[in-house]
């Protein structure tokens, strides 16, 4: 039912993979190889097993393009025919591995429970042994048919597909659109066919490519060890022959090896091209050239002794295909000492990027393109990373949005508090520990000793945010940058955390930049507010003035969207006709 749209998307996907030069070259080589395999009788000048006794180990020439092998057969013809056997063997292995692994993975991932557990054990068991040893051990039972061996090898490789598919399905299974499909009444089979296969097809294609490469190498290895049918021309068998004649005709080892390498390399490059295409959205594109160094502001503001932070005409950009895309477009703000300054706006307004540029911690690729940031009278945009580093933690601190992901899961909370204090304040570990325990008590954690000894996953989100606040104030900063510090918290916890931040602000005499989208939080906390839209500040005012008398239309619109209903809706049953 979705045929037209999917075809269109698939075509464009294929085209964009082929528009990658590496992908195109790899695809062309593979295509050529497959054609050679199919039309081998037309291409090969000799029968692969035709022997000319006087050409044993002959040098190239004389009709034998690449010379003769140890039995006097034409190396080139055998190479051409060898492609057939190679691709067929790989096809057998990939088909068996793919069918077993993908089906098993789909069911294990979607239904879980016993099937998942048991099939997981089987996969673990199959992966516990080197495949080649198993194939060797089974040689007598399987006989010299390489295809049977490759089918068994396919079984040994199926855990790769199984795990990949199972993990993908597990990831997709809890997506809300799968729930929506179930609510819409789709059967499980239909959900798997329509929704899940769509998502897993590209990773599976990559895996097919990789597994085909592995199969080709292993197959050649088995044949090299003499486990193939000696009557069938194969690349591995040719290497075995070349190995036996290594001291007589060392050059014969090149050709079959090159054939294998080119084929496998093409498969890998094709897989990489597909992967690149899939990840294109996430990767930060490389900027064509570095931007000009941050220019100083033409008319700098006079230094203001009351101001802790003066930002002027700040422009922050990220590289994209066309060059530098600004996300902060000329922001100016002044933060007074001891003030709580709210930076408020909707998503994409640039409020977080403005805050991060003050911290000097923009995401990868991000840069201050122009403008000035003066902290305590000193320009900090041009500072080296080391100078910047000296400010962080000690004078400028940070409280993040998402408490759990901002604690290192592998270290105890105590260590994560002590380490920065030892580094920044230069105090001993014992002193730092004592201070950390004090701080944990100060931020309202009932059992500081226990929290100190805990790992992050052992405490709640609200507790984690208190730990992060304790860490932020641990070195007595002058400026605290809080990026949506309560957005991830429940509303009652939010109230307590805001209360805590306000108390600490008074106690430590800090200034706070509070980045938020919530006007309630602004009204609760802030002295001054700047409203941001599309990388610019549209209005700055004291909190009282802003709420009482907003000047800019955008501010008015935002405040108008705040839900405060004096009346509630009154219920009346729907009319018969509407029901």
């Amino acid at each position, binding site marked *: *039912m*979705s045929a037209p*749209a*999917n075809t269109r*998307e698939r075509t464009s996907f294929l085209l964009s993979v082929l528009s990658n030069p590496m992908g195109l070259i790899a695809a062309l080589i593979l295509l050529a190889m497959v054609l050679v395999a199919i039309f081998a009788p037309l291409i090969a000048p000799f029968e692969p097993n035709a022997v000319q006794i006087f050409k044993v180990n002959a040098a190239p020439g004389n009709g034998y393009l690449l010379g003769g092998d140890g039995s006097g057969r034409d190396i080139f013809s055998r190479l051409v025919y060898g492609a057939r056997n190679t691709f067929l063997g790989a096809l057998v292995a990939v088909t068996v591995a793919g069918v077993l692994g993908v089906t098993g993975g789909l069911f294990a991932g979607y239904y879980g429970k016993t099937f998942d557990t048991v099939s997981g054990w089987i996969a673990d068991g199959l992966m516990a042994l080197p495949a080649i040893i198993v194939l060797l051990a089974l040689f007598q039972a399987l006989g010299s048919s390489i295809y049977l061996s490759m089918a068994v090898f396919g079984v040994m490789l199926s855990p790769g597909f199984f795990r990949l598919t199972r993990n993908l399905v597990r990831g997709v299974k809890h*997506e*809300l*659109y799968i*729930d*929506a*499909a*179930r*609510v*819409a*009444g*789709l*059967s499980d089979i*239909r959900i798997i066919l*329509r*929704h899940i296969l*769509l*998502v897993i097809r590209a990773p599976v294609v990559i895996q097919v490519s990789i597994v085909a490469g592995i199969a080709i190498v292993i197959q050649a290895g088995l044949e090299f060890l003499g486990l193939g049918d000696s009557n069938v021309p194969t690349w591995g068998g040719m290497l075995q022959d070349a190995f036996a004649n290594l001291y007589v005709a060392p050059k014969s080892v090149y050709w079959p090896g090159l054939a294998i390498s080119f084929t496998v390399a093409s498969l890998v490059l094709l897989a990489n091209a597909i992967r690149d295409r899939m990840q294109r959205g996430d990767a930060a594109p490389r900027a064509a050239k570095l931007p000009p160094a941050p220019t100083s502001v033409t008319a700098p503001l006079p230094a203001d002794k009351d101001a802790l932070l003066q930002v002027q005409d700040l422009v922050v950009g990220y590289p994209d295909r066309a060059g530098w895309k600004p996300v902060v477009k000329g922001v100016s703000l002044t933060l007074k000492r001891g003030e709580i300054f709210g930076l408020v706006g*909707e*998503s994409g307004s640039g409020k977080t990027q403005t805050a991060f540029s003050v911290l000097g911690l923009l995401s990868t690729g991000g840069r201050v393109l122009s403008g000035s940031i003066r902290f305590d009278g000193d320009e900090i945009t041009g500072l080296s990373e080391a100078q910047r580093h000296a400010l962080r933690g000690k004078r400028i601190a940070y409280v993040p949005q998402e408490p759990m992901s901002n604690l290192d899961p592998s270290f105890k909370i105590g260590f994560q508090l002590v380490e920065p204090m030892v580094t920044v304040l230069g105090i001993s570990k014992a002193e730092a520990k004592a201070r950390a325990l004090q701080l944990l008590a100060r931020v309202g954690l009932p059992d500081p000793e226990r929290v100190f000894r805990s790992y992050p996953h052992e405490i709640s989100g609200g507790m984690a945010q208190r730990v992060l606040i304790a860490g932020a104030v641990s070195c007595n900063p002058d400026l605290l940058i809080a990026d949506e510090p309560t957005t991830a918290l*429940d*509303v*009652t916890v*939010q*109230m307590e955390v*805001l*209360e805590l931040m306000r108390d600490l602000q008074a106690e430590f005499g800090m200034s706070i930049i509070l980045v938020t*989208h919530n*006007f*309630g*939080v*602004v*009204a*609760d906390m802030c002295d001054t507010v700047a409203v941001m839209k599309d990388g610019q500040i549209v209005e700055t005012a004291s909190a*009282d003035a802003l*709420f009482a008398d907003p000047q800019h239309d955008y501010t008015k*619109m*935002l*405040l*108008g*969207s*705040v*839900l*405060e*209903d004096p*009346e*509630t*809706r*009154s*219920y009346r*049953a*729907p*009319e*018969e006709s*509407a*029901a």
Partner: protein
Amino acid sequence: MTAPVLLDVRGVNTIFGAHHVLKDVSFTIRPGETVGLVGESGSGKTTIGRAILGIGPVSSGSLMFQGQEIAGLAPRERKGDAARIQAVFQDPYTSLNPSMTIEDILAEPVVARGIQSVSEARARVRELLDAVNLPADAAHRFPREFSGGQRQRVAIARALALQPKLIVCDEPVSALDLSTQARVLDLFVELQERTGVAYLFVSHDLAVVRHISHRVAVMRGGEIVEFGECDQVTARPEHPYTQRLLLAAPVANPARQAERRAAFRALQKA
């Protein structure tokens, strides 16, 4: 005659292993009514929504929908209107399959039920898009080409496709920006007035719930602590937990917020 009660939730319990997530949950939803369900994380508000949708477990208790017992029945096993209960989920970024066109997404529910043929379903897509104020040319585009608010409109259109009597809305506006949120809420109200659909509106935000609901239930730790008329619950709550919840949400007015904070502190101490 319209039945006085559309959905009667009575004594529902859900137990996940050692966790008793829902404890004797009871409430009703009338036709064309919005019942708001407020609670903090872990209160069980999403679990009851999923149980009603037939994608979450019910350990004991009853869910009567127009006289039909639907507890523990998957959507496909339900009959009549009960089979058409629909959902709008929180995250508009993951509730639409990124590799399907809007048209496919909107046609899927009716085609899956065999209600209409593919071509008939497609013909209705324009109507659905129109109902949620999206342009007709949206049909052939992919979800990634839309903003959060627009995606949520698509999700609402998908829920409307089966002409349901009840839509379970699980935090449908909490991932949206303030201005978008207001517009999407208006759309919910407008659609309800036009089609007579009832909503179970799950949210953590008391202001949102007050805006859209006729009656409100407050959940905490798997229990409903208060259930009553919207204005009473959201403005003059009786239960101390609801009072705490109400005072904890900061309001966009510095003077009034200072008063509320003082009241919250007093409540904390009490």
